[in-house]
């Protein structure tokens, strides 16, 4: 098992290197000059050129890339063009809020999604099932932006129960979590439902019923445990994606996460920040995938690596 983990981590390095090449190239191919964008329309061309030279943006691309990699090996992600701050510090300041939101909405999606999915599967084709899947359809279809604004209008402006966006207390976490989880709950619920339906028809489940076990024991201990593998995959992927930020939710709720950092950097053509954030995100995503794979082995004793 240990060897397996090691092998996976080693294989991640060329993947991440490939990511840096692609991002490096892509962000420079699109039109837009970071120096001009920092200094604004009214700055003189001479001043813009001076900044461009200072940032090394007028050197040939391979030289710029080499400089980037050399710094990376030393653990230095460079400095933001817009703020002059180390990229690592910019990312670190957004990391906490991003993780909070990712964890909270994943936990909500997992609990709510699996509950609804199990409920649907055990009462399949009943009105409970149809209502649940109908709500799931809404969750997947509602635009995040719209849902967020509606929740703000209702709970913050009308009822004044919760703050209208922002970051800080537990109260600030509620609405963004619900908004973000809406989509995931739907996916997890549907996945659980279909996976459970498959499992519930298996022979060993029938055996469990025949043995006279309670419904709870059959459904939760025997059926759900076996149905979880595809569900874990979905949850893992969702969580991994959320670690890269959730730009729409962050914008609507003024949440200081990585999504806004990344999109803001792209709009400002802040090359070091874009490269840094994407790299960090790719690394985290790789780790999450590895964790999910290890989780399979824990959940299903038949699976082992090595």
């Amino acid at each position: 098992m240990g060897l397996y983990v090691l092998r996976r981590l080693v294989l991640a390095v060329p993947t991440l290197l490939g990511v840096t090449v692609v991002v490096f190239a892509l962000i420079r191919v699109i039109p837009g000059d970071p120096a001009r964008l920092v200094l604004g329309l009214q700055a003189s061309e001479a001043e813009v050129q001076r900044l461009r030279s200072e940032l090394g943006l007028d050197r040939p691309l391979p030289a710029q890339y080499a400089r980037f990699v050399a710094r990376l090996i030393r653990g230095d992600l460079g400095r933001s063009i817009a703020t002059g701050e180390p990229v690592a510090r910019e990312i670190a300041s957004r990391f906490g809020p991003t993780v909070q939101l990712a964890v909270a909405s994943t936990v909500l999606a997992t609990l709510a999604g699996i509950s609804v999915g199990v409920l649907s599967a055990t009462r399949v084709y009943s009105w409970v099932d149809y209502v649940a899947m109908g709500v799931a359809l809404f969750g997947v279809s509602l635009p995040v932006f719209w849902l967020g604004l509606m929740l703000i209008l209702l709970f913050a402006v009308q009822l004044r129960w919760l703050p209208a966006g922002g970051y800080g207390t537990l109260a600030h976490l509620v609405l963004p979590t619900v908004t973000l989880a809406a989509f995931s709950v739907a996916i997890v619920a549907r996945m659980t439902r279909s996976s459970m339906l498959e499992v519930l028809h298996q022979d060993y489940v029938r055996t469990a019923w025949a043995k006279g076990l309670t419904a709870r024991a059959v459904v939760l201990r025997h059926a759900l445990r076996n149905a979880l593998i595809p569900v874990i995959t979905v949850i893992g992927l969702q969580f991994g994606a959320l670690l890269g930020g959730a730009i729409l939710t962050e914008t609507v709720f003024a949440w200081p996460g990585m999504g806004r950092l990344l999109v803001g950097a792209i709009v400002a053509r802040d090359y070091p920040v874009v490269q840094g954030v994407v790299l960090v995100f790719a690394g985290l995503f790789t780790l999450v995938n590895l964790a999910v794979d290890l989780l399979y082995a824990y959940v299903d004793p038949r699976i082992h690596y090595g």
Partner: protein
Amino acid sequence: MSRVLQSLALASLVASLLALPQGPVTAQSVPRQLRIAVGVDADRLDPAEQTTTTVANMVDYMFETLVDLHPTKLTVVPRLATRWQISRDGLTYTFTLRRGVRFHDGTPLNAEAVKFTMERLKDPRVAMALRFLVTPVQAVEVVNDTTVRFRLSKVTPTFLADLSTTQFAIVSPAAVQRAGDRWRSAPVDGGTGPYMFKEWRRGDSIVLERNPNYWGQKPLFDEVVFRVVPDAGTRLAQVLAGDVHMAMLPPAPDVRGLRRNPQVKVVEAASDRVVFVAMNTQWGPFRDVRVRQAMNYAVNKKAILASVLFDLGTVSDSPCPPMMFGYHKVREGGWPFSPGRAKELLAQAGYKDGFEVNFFTPTGRYIQDFQFAQAIAGQLRNVGVRANVTTMDWPSYVAMIQTPLERTRVQMLVLGWAWPVLDCDGVLYGQFHTASHPPRGLGPAFYTNPRVDQLLDQQRAEANVERRKALLKESQEIIWNDAPWIWLWTQKWYVVTARNLEGVLIHPIEKWTALCEPQEPAVGHHCVNWR
């Protein structure tokens, strides 16, 4: 099933309990904390490196300049300097500093600090965007503790107005040296302003605290918090929910309703940002002045302002916005709307059947930009000009504007121009002088007129105020009738505030003031107030 209901009830109870610490603002007492929702996060807090007006606005709470611009009269008024003398040749300015002013770190404001600040602005390691503003300063001399002398290399009629911009704010040499590398992200104790830097939570908020030793009127609030809220709808929701006391630029379509809403106040005023459609005067039909004038006749600006911009603009009656020095009203009420006249002129120029043209516009950069571009295209179609509206993201747009004439695909585009110094030179030279053709400058009309060039060069070197105004007047008349632009409007800048917040003013350079402003020395200070 009942367990589910129980959980829901519990959840809403918890939610309402959690809401308690963040209660809404009560009407009676002055809040301890003034909360303002802004649309952008700061990039740098060093006054010298300011490029965005909103960020400069926040920095203004902490740092002050030698002189200020009166928000409505637009005259130069004292701030950290109480008196000044200008030599007859216009090359020497001597300032007397206010006595007893201290920086937040306790060190005194003196001529040394002014000299340090100015020399710092010339340092290439400080990324001052509008460096040309400080280039004329050849030397700064310390005469004594409270007297400082500037020697300029050339006559600069706008020098005093330039000194009022945030970049020229006086900083404490000790604080700058103490902060070193971290100065631009944490300018601790470096200013003289009514509030001091406390904390910057990136992407979230900037927190300032009251300066107990401020030389002017005592600051009203213990703390000022700028909340970063990128979405205009959410900003508005925060004001309506009572989470913040003021929000800049709520969504334009909501403004009419907000003007009638008794819970809030909309504070709006004309800004110096002129919005226009630039026509590439070196391309096809636009080479003919009659075609350009026809385009102006074809567009009904008043109608568009009323129905697409919700009255958030004022029709242009000159190439230069009204509040700038040297403004001359060329045509009362703006260019008249007359589709008949437009068709006549087009026919005279040989375009009886109109022509096709590409029409670029940004989205979200100016008030209702994408929307009014489509409205304009519709009106142009009525006179036979078929404009294809295209949009793109801002950086790509800037790159497109900067393309030189040989390679540009620009035929017609929407742009806005705001100059931080309220002087017509900024607009006229920056957009209509041959030297401002891209890529050297940002005048995408590629307009060139030798007489205009001559006039603009002359006014730059003219120290006499009346002669300068005459030169500017003549250039405005020539440019207006040459119509390199479809003259549209100047935007209004606006904020929405809680009903109790009084005395918020809007500066034409797209700033708000929610502080004590020195107006006339005799009248005393104007202060923002809570009722």
